[in-house]
């Protein structure tokens, strides 16, 4: 018994002791990881880790370090979406947030409790150059917290331009025109899907409702305010129209057959290649089309979701994300962080880099950075609406209330499971719960 194991004994013990020593050694080494910066101020800059964001951030940092040799910037990334939201809150709660970080604007920002966790930037010089629509999304009663990064984007209908030219169709100004166009397409070109829906990715289902807000705001400028106060409802006109449109495209048989399972990328491909005519979507789909159908990027145009009355038809604008400084950053790091924020927001270098990397999705919200030529067709179309002043910010930027179940309800209405009136009432109920959680008065 003993001899059988005897010859391996010493070796085994040696291994075990060695492993234990390594373990202890690593724990000790882990403790002593300190920072050393020689003279220059070192700050960190956090961006969500999608490929284009990282690429432009890297170029931005090298341009910034050239302009400000006394400041060194360390790039950090973290996941987007739910994990990113939770991680951001955790970092802010534990004082571990990077010195400058990119995050959403509007209602998601309010959830960060900005008055306690972020640094007020209202005295910065760039503020006067930024559009008020944007500033409203990064403000509370006590301060202004974010500087714009990236471009805005529009919501409405993306359409296939060659198909419209082939059939001699006009861009519709009213909802009835839109339905008439779709029916013409169904009649003349039976192989083409008139209206795409891609419920394989649930968030896409909300577009017909969210993009209808531009028209609602034109028709009734005080709607969003009364909605926040609990007076205006989705179950009443004009906001009910969004749900009605969703039901109508389904009931009229204008949708693709596989609307329940089609994915966003597949829908964009069909649209770009002429297999479909309309897709209610955001213009930030441009980079995906540029990657997957580069030759057809300019075959995809944009028009605002048509209202019942042509004079109310307006594009709905989503505001870009912003850069923030957490209140845990102080002293010379804070000064350096403010310099970086100013550089990201208003320097000509940053403007050039932004237009150079990736694909533009819409106009910039700062007047020092106009759109260059050579932007995708859909962005040009969107710019026309903005120039004509027929554009309104999306509801999520003018009201803190957004029910978490909108996508599910939209899918039910869009699949014919629920009627428009029923769906709108269900969403009002969803909104009521959210408003009560936020502690708003009047609910």
């Amino acid at each position, binding site marked *: 018994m003993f001899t059988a194991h005897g010859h391996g*004994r010493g070796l085994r013990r040696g291994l*075990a002791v060695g492993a234990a020593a390594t373990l202890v050694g690593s*724990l000790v080494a882990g403790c002593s990881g300190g920072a050393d910066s020689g003279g220059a101020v070192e700050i960190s800059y956090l961006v969500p880790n999608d*490929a284009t964001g990282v690429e432009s951030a890297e170029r931005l940092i090298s341009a910034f370090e050239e302009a400000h040799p006394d400041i060194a910037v360390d790039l950090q*990334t973290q996941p987007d979406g739910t*994990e990113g939201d*939770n991680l951001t809150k955790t970092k802010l709660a534990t004082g571990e947030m990077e010195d400058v970080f990119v995050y959403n604007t509007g209602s998601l920002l309010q959830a960060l409790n900005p008055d306690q966790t972020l640094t007020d930037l209202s005295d910065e010089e760039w503020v006067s150059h930024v559009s008020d629509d944007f500033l409203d999304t990064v403000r509370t009663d006590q301060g202004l917290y974010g500087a714009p990064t990236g471009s805005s984007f529009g919501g409405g209908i993306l359409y296939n331009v060659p198909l419209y030219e082939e059939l001699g169709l006009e861009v519709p100004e009213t909802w009835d025109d839109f339905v008439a166009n779709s029916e013409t397409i169904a009649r003349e070109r039976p192989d083409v899907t008139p209206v795409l829906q891609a419920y394989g990715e649930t968030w896409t289902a909300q577009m017909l409702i969210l993009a209808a807000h531009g028209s609602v705001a034109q028709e009734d400028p005080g709607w969003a305010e009364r909605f926040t106060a609990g007076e205006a409802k989705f179950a009443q006109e004009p906001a009910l129209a969004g749900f009605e449109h969703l039901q109508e495209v389904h009931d009229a048989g204008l949708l693709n057959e596989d609307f329940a399972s089609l994915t966003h990328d597949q829908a964009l491909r069909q649209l770009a290649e002429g297999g479909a005519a309309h897709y209610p979507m955001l213009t930030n789909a441009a980079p995906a089309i540029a990657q997957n159908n580069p030759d057809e990027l300019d075959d995809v145009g944009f028009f605002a979701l048509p209202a019942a009355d042509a004079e109310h038809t307006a594009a709905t604008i989503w505001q870009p994300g912003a850069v923030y400084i957490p209140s845990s950053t102080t002293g010379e790091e804070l000064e350096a962080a403010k310099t970086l924020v100013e550089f990201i927001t208003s320097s000509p270098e940053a403007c050039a880099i932004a237009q150079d990397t990736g694909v533009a999705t819409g106009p910039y919200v700062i007047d020092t950075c106009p759109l260059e030529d050579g932007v995708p067709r859909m962005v040009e179309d969107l710019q026309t609406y903005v120039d004509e002043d027929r554009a309104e910010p999306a509801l999520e930027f003018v009201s803190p209330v957004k029910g978490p179940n909108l996508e599910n309800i939209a899918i039910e209405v869009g699949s014919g499971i629920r009627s428009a009136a029923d769906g709108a009432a269900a969403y009002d109920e969803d909104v009521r719960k959210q408003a009560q959680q936020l502690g708003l008065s009047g609910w």
Partner: protein
Amino acid sequence: MRTLRLRRAAYGVLAIVVSVVVFLVPFAFIVLTASKTAPDASQLEFSLPQDWAFLDNLVEVVSYRDGIVLRAFVNSAVLTVLSVTAMVLLAAMVGYVTQRRRSWLNPVVDTMVLAGLIVPPAVVPTVWVLQRLELFKTLGGLVLIEVTFGLSFCILLFRAFVATIPRELDEAAILDGAGPVRLFWTMIVPLLRPVIITVVVVQAVAVFNDFTGPLYFLPGDENATVQLTLYNFQGQSLNQYNLLFMDILLITIPPLVLYVFFNRQIVAGMTNGALKG
């Protein structure tokens, strides 16, 4: 007799077909998508690539952001080795002592082990503790967390296995003059081999695949682990499925190799000691 053999063969073939569908088809999908160009991959179809871009994708993933994927492999490897080593050492000792020596401490230890299985981790307080110990954002801190979450399960396995080792063996060794330390290292540990392999494989895969632990307790790009790199290639409006699946393929290989080589021991170790509690 003949029909019985035929039926057995039919069951065998059926089992093979099912395992092919369940395991090999998804794997083939990963390999095929990892070989496509970005526009081709965005269709997410089960088809041969139009152009084979396997090498291009591999180079792009590996060289992305100064080799963050390679750095992540090093971090994950160090994290996994250290955590699993600590778990095996501690759990073997605890399992042996609590099984052999009955005392008033046993109920306390049992409660703690159960609590370790039941109590969910709370992120922010854990971060506070790590900050105070100056272990936050260090690999050592995350090793301690992984060990904490995995230890209970390991202790249960070890204790069940030690019960199958006859007490007479301990007594014989003690009569021959072995002290407690020598008894444990030279007698018991070699006999624990099957369960050690099980624990190593099961926990190595769990630690290697952990996503939320590194996400919350080890932020920072220089600390990235492999599961976190997956997020480099997907976003809400733009997905690079070819690179994403290449990354998945790279990450799948180490656990796969582990299972292929140790498959038999894992099953043996899991069932060993299952009869005697």
